[in-house]
């Protein structure tokens, strides 16, 4: 059921948008080009980040260091019921958006996007915004440095969303 709905979401959304745009008199082709130019900029901007993370992870993984650290974290992860590959992603999420995006992509590419781990990594990757980034950039933009309890709010969001992501992945994507 979930499979059916989610394979229709994308084409339905695209068709609806183009249709509504046409009805509203939007020059759909021109608007598409304008948007695509923006999207191109975003993609190119991501390249150095991926280069840095994939390179570092390639070294870390091939050397065997990843397995080593994984086995160190494994008892804690297992105790919490979290796959040891996903656990570092949860720790990285509040700290770095680009880092966690890169690590998530690595898991997706290594394990396959439709494997349980790939799916779980995807869900964890989208489960929350980067607390550290939001606090520093958003509060910094209005000149506030004392963050009161907002960091606690962010961490609470990170922990809860991580657990919900792991549990719902298990529930929805088992076999």
């Amino acid at each position: 059921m979930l499979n059916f709905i989610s394979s229709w979401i994308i084409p339905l959304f695209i068709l609806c948008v183009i249709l509504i745009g046409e009805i509203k008199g939007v020059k759909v082709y021109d608007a598409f080009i304008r948007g695509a130019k923006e999207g191109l900029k975003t993609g190119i901007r991501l390249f150095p980040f991926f280069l840095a993370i994939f390179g570092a992870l390639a070294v870390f993984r091939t050397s065997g260091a990843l397995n080593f650290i994984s086995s160190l974290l494994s008892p804690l992860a297992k105790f919490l019921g979290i796959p040891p590959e996903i656990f570092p992603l949860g720790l990285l999420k509040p700290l770095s958006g680009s880092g966690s995006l890169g690590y998530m992509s690595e898991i997706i590419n290594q394990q396959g996007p439709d494997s349980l781990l790939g799916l779980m990594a995807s869900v964890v990757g989208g489960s929350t915004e980067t607390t550290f980034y939001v606090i520093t950039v958003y509060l910094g933009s209005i000149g506030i440095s004392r963050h009161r309890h907002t960091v606690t709010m962010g961490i609470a969001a990170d922990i809860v969303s991580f657990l919900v992501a792991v549990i719902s992945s298990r529930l929805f994507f088992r076999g």
Partner: protein
Amino acid sequence: MRGDKVLNKIWFALFFLGYMVAGATGRIEKTTASLFISIESTVKFTLGLTGFLAFWSGILRIAEEAGLMKVMARLLHPFLRRLFPNISRHAPVLGAISLSLSANLLGLSNASTPLGLKAMEELNKLNPNPGQISDEIAVYLGLVMGGICIIPSTIIAIRAQAGSNNPALIVGPILLATVAGTMAALLVHKASKIIGSGKKKLPK
């Protein structure tokens, strides 16, 4: 996306520890080969991803120019009234907030920071104590950090690029997780308000 201190330390550690273990286990050549292969695969990966992102941004631009963002804002209005009871319903800040939240909801990642900063600017204009975090600012930050998202476009694009049979399969669980996280953030804020007012009531 910036190079924060923690990420710098992590990146350094990945290379350093990696090569230390590689040296200890005799995998230096294999590791270096893997590093250079990763460069090529990063180019291929980013190229494909950029294609998807460009396509998706094109579609979302049509949506924006067709006024769908304004429709989203109107849909959000009842929720915003409940979350920000002290803001009058016609205040321009509500427009800025709903635009920024709509951008997050639709996965418009390049728009979300500029729109979010605009919302912060507007919220700060209503701030009774500039330099301190007002109630409304805290609630807004909770919404941003929780990151409720209906269409996580970057993640869908990465999955599609990796060859997924069903890139959008993760939409439901992500919505669940982001809603749960947002509620947690707002609960913490509520709790801190209760604790704060409790402290004020304590007799000296």
